[in-house]
């Protein structure tokens, strides 16, 4: 098939990226016949698709979130396994983003395209590390694609949380953390820092923590916030979804120090807008150095850039002789990551 271009068989549609020869959508934003889902975050995994291909962990997360609507027919595909769909071979490879997160490796007519979904490169005790795959086209996210985003060492961020708990022992520390991935990773990091007391959870975080535990990721003693005296939270650490930080829910805590674990906390204006007192720069997305190192590592001559700050990454890639362009995909948000 001389002259076949990658965009001839992987196309941008209003439902998302579509692999035409396999009639397969990747992270579709509207319900489709056949989908492959990179990971369980709500802007990538949506309910209502008929057949869904994903890692067993991602399928479990979708079932926990959507129940029956997760998929009419779920097809698990473990990391490294391959599946032939018509003329296309599909393989899932760890992306290092959250539990179950995968890059989708598509091979067709001697070409290989990797759709990396969301990813990061640093260690995460709750999921296997990103594996670079050499390819002809690499499709990358660009959430933190500006050179101002260089995430610091996460152990240092957790140390500042524990130092604050020591300095304000009469106050609770309320940490906003996205319910899938960030919360569990943060819990593991807090445990690694030596904090073995119970951690207190907003009810909305419970189910996914249980799911992580069931997948063998130990989180230590976790207790619900509900049903306890205000005074009991002095000197304790409480985790809640970001939206609950300034919610009326937070009034049950004694004068809480509000913290937030997110890559956005790097920029002061963003942290201030959220009314955060203790920003913790902990991200599940690649920072600038990770993004650029990854592009160099996979060595793709062509890069497609999706959601985030595409312009800067496209500019950087062009400067290195990589053909780069921004894909405008709808339905992706600056999540509370």
């Amino acid at each position, binding site marked *: 098939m001389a002259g076949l271009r990658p965009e001839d068989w992987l196309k941008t549609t209003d439902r998302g990226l579509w692999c035409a020869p396999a009639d397969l959508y990747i992270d579709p934003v509207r319900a489709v016949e056949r989908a492959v889902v990179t990971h369980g975050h709500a802007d990538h995994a949506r309910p209502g698709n008929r057949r869904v291909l994903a890692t067993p962990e991602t399928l479990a997360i979708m079932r926990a979130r959507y129940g029956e609507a997760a998929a009419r027919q779920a097809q698990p595909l473990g990391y490294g396994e391959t599946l032939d769909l018509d003329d296309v071979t599909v393989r899932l490879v760890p992306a290092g983003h959250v539990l179950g997160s995968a890059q989708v490796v598509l091979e067709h007519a001697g070409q290989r395209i990797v759709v990396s979904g969301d990813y990061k490169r640093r260690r995460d005790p709750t999921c296997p590390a990103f594996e670079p795959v050499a390819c002809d086209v690499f499709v990358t996210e660009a959430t933190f694609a*500006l*050179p*101002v*985003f*260089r995430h*610091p060492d996460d152990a240092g961020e957790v140390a*500042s949380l524990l130092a*604050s708990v020591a*300095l*304000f022992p009469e106050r609770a520390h309320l940490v906003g953390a996205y319910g899938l991935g960030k919360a569990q990773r943060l819990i593991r990091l807090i445990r690694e820092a030596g904090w073995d007391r119970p951690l207190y959870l907003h009810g909305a975080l419970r189910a996914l923590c249980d799911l992580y535990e069931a997948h063998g990721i130990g989180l230590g003693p976790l207790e619900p916030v509900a049903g306890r005296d205000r005074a009991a939270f002095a000197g304790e650490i409480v985790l809640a979804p970001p939206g609950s*930080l*300034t*919610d*009326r*829910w*937070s*009034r049950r805590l004694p*004068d809480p120090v*509000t913290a937030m674990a997110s890559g956005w906390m*790097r*920029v*002061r*204006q963003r*942290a*201030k*807008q959220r*009314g*955060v*007192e*203790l*920003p913790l720069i902990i991200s599940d997305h690649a920072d600038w150095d990770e993004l650029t190192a990854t592009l160099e590592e996979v060595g793709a001559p062509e890069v497609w850039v999706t959601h985030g*700050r595409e*312009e*800067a990454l496209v*500019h*950087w890639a062009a*400067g290195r002789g990589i053909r780069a362009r921004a894909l405008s995909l709808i339905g992706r948000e600056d999540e509370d990551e």
Partner: protein
Amino acid sequence: MKDFAALLDRLVYTPSRNGKLRLLADYFRRTPDPDRGWALAALTGDLDFPNAKAGAIRDLAREQADEVLFALSYDYVGDLAETTALLWQTQSGAEPPRLAGVVEALRRAGRTEVRGLVSGWLDGLDATGRWALLKLITGGLRIGVSARLARVALAQAFDAAVEEIEEVWHAVEPPYGDLFAWLAGDGEKPDVAGRATFRPFMLAHPLEEGVALDPADWLVEWKWDGIRVQLAARGGERRLYSRTGDDISAAFPDVLDAMGFDGVLDGELLVRDPADPGSADPASFNALQQRLNRKTVSKKMLAAHPAYVVAYDILFDGAADLRDLPLEKRRERLEAFAAQHGHPDIELSARLDAPDWPAVAALQAEARRLGREGLMLKRRDSRYEPGRKTGLWFKWKRAPLLADAVLMYAQRGHGRRSSFYSDYTFGVWRGGELVPVGKAYFGFTDEELAQLDRWVRNHTLNRFGPVREVEKRLVFEVAFDSIHPSPRHKSGLAMRFPRIARIRWDKPAGEADRIEALEAMV
């Protein structure tokens, strides 16, 4: 530098005063000399590096990324120092500097050396450290800590009285080794004899409603509508201090010129209306504000708003400390002092003549018409005691102005109030539209706050981040001290000290005040 950077970083995000005090006190206790002393000087605004210029920093920043990436980054972050701090890359092998090393080197450095020094330090620091360094160098930390708050924290750190620290403050120099030694119990109290240092003010309590006092025991004076100041002159050194103990001499050379004496006076700083120089009345507080918060003052400003002082009290006559004398005696000394060292720009505060309480009340009722802030009532036998001692001095302010205004926007508070819509913007009618006239976040009880929060949530029209626009239905009776023309506000008016006096759940919004009514109060 790392600890100092962490401190600044925390302070920026900490809204509550107590939280800030705790962070500062903790830092002062565990940081060695001289780093903590330099940090204190940075916080109190007593550090200046004339050879370090913001322009040089800008040039350094642009060398760090290519033009497109720099522009995209700056556009996203919005702050040049922060953008630079984030773009710069830590070099492995470069050592992070100590705060003391940075300050000492910058004070010695010539203009051409600054760039190389700064660049080397940026290499060794992390992003937070770089941000703190750039803030330190370019001046104006803007982290919501006043010099006074830093001194209160210092007192808290070492279990000392802040008044004692204030007394020695202007006689010590950064990095304050002698001050920390004394506070830590390892040295003598710094000697302030012979120096024009600040002496803590004696303050008044508000007079409670319905209280009547016998003028035989109380000295009655106007409460002037200016700012309280202390004039300290000793051994040729002349200084003017604000109520918080900040040295504001540089902004008021005209007042310093009038201080041809040796002693310490307590008084009110006012400005004259140059169009009416003979008047016994000062220009408005609004006019005085033109002269405040300036590092220097232009000739034009001096001519347009000439400053003078109305003296209330005398603390020192030469070296003699008069603070233990009763007020009546100090007043005699003040009058004699003024007669001896008189200057037209230092007037005496008049003793008001009121034989009985009804006469005092009649004076208070006149205060607004005369442009005074109210009355002061001071026990004739009171010693001059620092701080706010009960039962010795009272202030009886003029009655506030009142207006009925409609709630327009509500904003989430900070810290303890971060889950409550507690900051209210209200407006009055101009024709058929509401124009905002002020903003208030106190004057209501906790119970009323909970009611207001509920009301805001149930009557929201639009949300803009932490702000909600609400239905224009709820009327506040707003109390305020005065109202001034202000080109910065859409209504053309700005209130001084507005607070919510009552929530008028019963009053229809259409019956709230009109702008014309407020304009008449200017």
